[in-house]
């Protein structure tokens, strides 16, 4: 199914003369995980608030499940949404279980579901302790638990892994994969997250309120045309290899004893490999495709330079 869950059509939001978000065209498809990447103030939170119906767009339109998030049926819509805000600290005086029961009641769910979700995020043992005693990571997990109340079909997560240790981050990604498997649509809002690539379907890169790029990682890589990083180890002549590869547009990036690092255009991948395999002394080859981080930096910085040039 490629039905769209969220549809931004030229949606913009102005605060006075400041354009927090300019004419955004973007869709979130059913069952996909979309990463919304950008710096602080890039417009990520504004986009999320538009979907949540907390603010209204000043231009264009936003549809969630085909409906206006601020319309007459917004409460029905909100029953199907889960949201994890950035930096939420909850109520210090209440226990984790009381916080969950409170939110469950507001979402018209039972206390049993609240307990199940506490179990699921690993907070059951701390459920009767006051939130005041929770670490940042535990609060974050409590936040995830409340977002999952009512089996939402659309999850909006703002900086979900902030404060989580590496193991908890892996657990979180595992939960993400499981939710995706159940057909939940997820929007992940964040700075660049190391290791998130494997868990997302598409990425949208925002900067200064504008959408810079959107697509699957492969599409983004094609669009950016960033070189592959090829590491070659063995007992070989650097100058010789460089000569063999020069015809394919491959450049030597660094040489460190037995390891040479080349940057190759994506289109020349196979030719480069053949040339390397034919070269004497080569023992091992590693190929790294551009990471999400380098793609993000490319789209963020590239267009910024373009905007500067046009001024």
């Amino acid at each position, binding site marked *: 199914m490629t039905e769209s869950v969220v549809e931004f059509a030229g949606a913009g939001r102005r605060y006075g003369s400041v354009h927090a978000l300019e004419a955004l065209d973007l869709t979130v498809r059913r069952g996909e995980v979309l990463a919304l990447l950008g710096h602080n103030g890039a417009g990520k939170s504004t986009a999320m*608030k538009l979907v949540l*119906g*907390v603010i209204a767009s000043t231009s264009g339109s936003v549809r969630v499940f085909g409906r206006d998030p601020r319309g007459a049926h*917004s409460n*029905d819509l909100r029953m199907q*949404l889960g949201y994890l805000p950035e930096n*939420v600290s909850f109520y210090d005086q209440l226990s984790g279980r009381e916080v969950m029961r409170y939110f469950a*009641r*507001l979402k*018209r769910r039972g206390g049993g579901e609240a307990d199940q979700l506490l179990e699921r995020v690993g907070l059951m043992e701390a459920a009767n302790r006051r939130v005041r005693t929770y670490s940042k990571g535990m609060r974050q997990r409590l936040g995830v638990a409340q977002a999952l109340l009512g089996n939402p079909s659309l999850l909006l997560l703002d900086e979900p892994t902030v404060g989580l240790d590496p193991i908890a981050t892996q657990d979180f990604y595992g939960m993400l994969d499981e939710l995706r498997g159940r057909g939940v649509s997820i929007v992940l809002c964040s700075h660049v997250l190391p290791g998130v690539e494997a868990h997302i379907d598409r990425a949208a890169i925002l900067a200064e309120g504008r959408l810079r790029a959107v697509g699957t990682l492969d599409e983004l890589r094609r669009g950016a045309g960033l070189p592959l990083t090829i590491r070659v180890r063995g007992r070989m002549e650097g100058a010789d290899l460089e000569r063999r590869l020069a015809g394919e547009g491959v450049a030597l990036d660094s040489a460190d004893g037995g390891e040479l690092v080349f940057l190759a255009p994506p289109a020349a991948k196979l030719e480069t490999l053949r040339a390397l395999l034919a070269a004497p002394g080569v023992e091992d080859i590693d190929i790294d495709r551009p990471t999400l981080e380098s793609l993000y930096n490319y789209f963020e910085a590239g267009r910024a330079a373009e905007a500067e040039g046009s001024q």
Partner: protein
Amino acid sequence: MNAVLAVAGKELRDGLRNRWALAITVVFAVLAVGLAAFGSVASGQVGFAPLSTTIVSLASLAVFLIPLIALMLAYDSVVGEEQQGTLLLLLTYPLSRIELLTGKFLGHSAVLGLSTLVGFGAAGGVIAALSPQVTVAQLLPPLTLFIVSSVLLGWAFIALAYLISVSTREKGRAAGLALVVWFLFVLVFDLGLLAILVGTGGAVDAGLFRGLMLLNPTDVFRLVNLTGFEAVAAQAGLMSVAEDAFHPVLLLAVLAGWVVAPFGLALWLFHRRRA
């Protein structure tokens, strides 16, 4: 409605948990019993003071204390949630802003109302049991009037605290504003009225002057409790201007108006407030 009750229940639980309710109850009870037991020491007598004196002393202290407590209890109700990130979260839940604020108001009102009732009520019981001159029948009507007006005064200042809370963006600023509001209503307003009286040499129209007093909930509270007793009319000070001019029921209705109007304004501002 379920959402309103959920929010109210949470606020009530918060109030019990952080000992607000307990503190208010104890302060009120100790104050009332203390004034009853030692109120006549100042006039050279030992033993329980006459009921009228007790109620009047209590009212003149409560008029400072209740607004302060109410403002402290509720000034951060919205701005505090905003700062800890839960306001934005709550706004994404299936409940309207009006339901959210109404629920909070019910919760805070319950905390203050129950504490006032239990605190002063317990004190009334102690006075009735220990004081030889006071019978329950004598005690009940003025004490009921006092408790009802105290609760309404508290609610009025909770509503004013909400007004402050929805119109500020920082907790510290809200706290400062709450103090200013307390100072204006409890101290400055009466000084202003006195200045008018003195400045005009008392030639101000009595009806107009009484009307001015209704513009301050603390003055309405004083009117309810200070002018009800013949014996103490002489101690009522500024309030004696309006002596017998208003029926207590009318005054209670005005106090109720002081609850409804600021809360209504707070609802309207919260509805328009940027998330």
